[in-house]
């Protein structure tokens, strides 16, 4: 039986007050960590894209502009919370929360490191990610609808259609890995990879599908249709300002972190790696994923929405299914 359970000191024991406090502290630590990562991933995004565009990126706030994003976040937090007159008030206020709670919820299953990290070691981790991240669609969609703005409505609808249709190939590409590892538990998947090669090699087809579908799921270039600046002037969050807008942005970047974590876990052996400590390996893998996303963002134009849909259903899904069949056949034969 799987024994990593013993590492999480409250797992497998009845709930006690110290355990509860530990959970709470762990949640806060992860939250703060996520915020920090989000801030500096935005900083890195601006720097990296700036360098590729012959610019120097943020350079005014702090040394090398290191506090630029901090300043931006502070600005967003102290900004007036504008609620336009004709919005559906309740939903307008709730939508950012719907979007952002699942984003943090999925972080709970990402195994950031082998030890000392508060990860829910649940048996259905991979499926949990796909399921919970689906709730975010509600936030995005309701945000777009309740704004009572036509651009926001189109953005919200696009987003819902996109996330819904890319969830399927995303899930299918994960199934390939699950088949190989024989478990849905993310820790189990890492452990299974420690015995063999990283799954990116045998699952290369699934990996490609995963990266494309994951990019689409996060609404990033070239699938940034929901908030297409040049078409929809910002899409679903066009009416939002202040910290509610910050919530939407936070959602986007926390998903970037979570998707990076998931990718590292499923295809690159998670925290496993020689010499360096586990959390550092994990950070390096996520960092590479971030950089790759920003690189795409700097290079590619935006795909059109009908092409986006047919790309998912007519190309990615068959590919993912083919990958699944091949994996199953190989697994049975070998």
């Amino acid at each position, binding site marked *: 039986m799987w024994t990593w359970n013993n590492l999480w000191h409250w797992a497998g024991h009845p709930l006690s007050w110290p355990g509860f406090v530990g959970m709470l502290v762990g949640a806060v630590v992860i939250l703060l960590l996520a915020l920090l990562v989000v801030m500096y991933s935005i900083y890195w995004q601006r720097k990296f894209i700036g360098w590729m565009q*012959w610019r120097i990126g943020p350079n005014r706030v702090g040394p090398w502009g290191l506090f630029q994003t901090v300043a931006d976040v502070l600005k967003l937090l102290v900004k007036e919370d504008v609620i336009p007159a004709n919005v559906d008030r309740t939903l307008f206020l709730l939508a950012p929360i719907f979007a952002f709670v699942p984003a943090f919820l999925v972080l709970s299953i990402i195994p950031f490191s082998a030890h000392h990290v508060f990860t829910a070691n649940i048996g259905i981790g991979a499926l949990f990610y796909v399921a919970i991240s689906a709730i975010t669609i509600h936030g995005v969609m309701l945000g777009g609808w309740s704004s009572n703005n036509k651009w926001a409505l189109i953005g919200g609808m696009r987003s819902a259609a996109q996330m819904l249709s890319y969830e399927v190939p995303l899930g299918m590409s994960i199934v390939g890995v699950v088949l190989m590892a024989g478990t849905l538990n993310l820790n189990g998947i890492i452990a299974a990879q420690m015995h063999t090669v990283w799954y990116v090699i045998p699952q290369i087809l699934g990996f490609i599908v995963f990266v494309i579908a994951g990019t689409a799921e996060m609404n990033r270039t070239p699938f940034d249709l929901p908030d297409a600046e*040049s078409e929809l002037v910002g899409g679903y969050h066009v009416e939002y300002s202040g910290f509610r807008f910050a919530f939407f942005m936070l959602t986007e970047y926390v998903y970037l972190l979570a998707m990076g974590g998931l990718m590292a876990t499923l295809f690159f052996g998670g925290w496993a790696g020689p010499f360096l400590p586990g959390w550092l390996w994990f950070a390096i893998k996520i960092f590479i994923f971030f950089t790759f996303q920003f690189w795409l963002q700097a290079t590619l*134009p935006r795909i059109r929405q*009908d092409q986006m849909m047919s790309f998912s259903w007519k190309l990615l899904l068959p590919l993912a299914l083919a990958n699944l069949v091949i994996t199953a056949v190989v697994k049975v034969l070998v």
Partner: protein
Amino acid sequence: MALTDETDLVRTEEMLLNVGPQHPSTHGVFRMVVKISGETIIEAEPVIGYLHRGTEKLAENLQYSQCIPYTDRLDYVSAMLNNYSLVHAVEEAMGLEIPDRAEYIRVITMEMNRLASHLIFFGTYLLDLGAMTPFLYAFEEREKIIDMFNELCGARITYNYMRVGGVKFDTTPGWLEQVDAFVKRMKGEMVKYRQLVTGNEIFLARVHGVGAYTTEQALGHGMSGINLRCTGYNWDLRKKKPYSIYDRFDWDVPLGSAGDCWDRYILHMEEMEQSLRIVEQALQQIQPGPVMAKVPKLIRVPAGEYYSGIEGTRGELGFYIVSDGKDKPYRLKIRRPSFENLQILPIILKGVPVADMVAILGSIDPVMGEVDA
């Protein structure tokens, strides 16, 4: 388009969407009232006039030389050509003989300006389609052209450089060498642009077969320039009605065939290369000499009606002068190519998705200063 058939399956509510006048992809203060069903446009109505400054009326109270700075502000991304078009019309009317060096400088600056304008097209078009890096690359090269113009005539956008009878200044020492170095550098940049954008599958999927129209439609709407040539109709005033010294250079008119966004895009890229060719030859042929003809201090156009059109960056840019023999035009009519080119929008926007609306509008490449005059 195929999209309309699919969306017919679901009856959705029609929605009136107001695009602009402050929309990032309308290239200025342009407004379109589009009726959409789902994301498909069923009707589009362009609304113009947000940048109207009454240039034509103002000109009636200005001397010809005073009109020149106003032409800068028509098509503000290719002011040199506007300058030239006006002074060319006046020179034709007066029958002036222009010194050779002045003509060469004019051609070099005009073609460089065309290049700068097409660079803006390249950058903003890709920005419309969601890629932001080409914009910065294009603007960096344009910056170099503008810096050279700044050195030549003292302004970065509104040059006010051409004069009736010649140009305002001779080149500064070393300016022609700068241009030469730029042309060499720009050829390398063009290769980079092709690698970065022209082969990109997403880009190809976005522009191929989008916003196509036929030669008949284009002619019927009075379109000109690249927007006409993309349908395969060979019409370039530099070849068809040669003006200035364009007959001294060896260059081609690139032609499209399908009349879609792809053709318009690729024609812009090819025209940039042709402009580089012309500038290169002009740099070899230019000789020292005067840059200003003998012109009376107060310019008077003989009574009569004169029209002269040149190949502007966006099409036939013409100035129609009605003169009663005084030092001010009785009436100055400007044929602004962007205005004519925009007329086809309601037709080609019918049945396309909202995302393509941006792609089509960008490919027509209007400049609002010129549309509203």
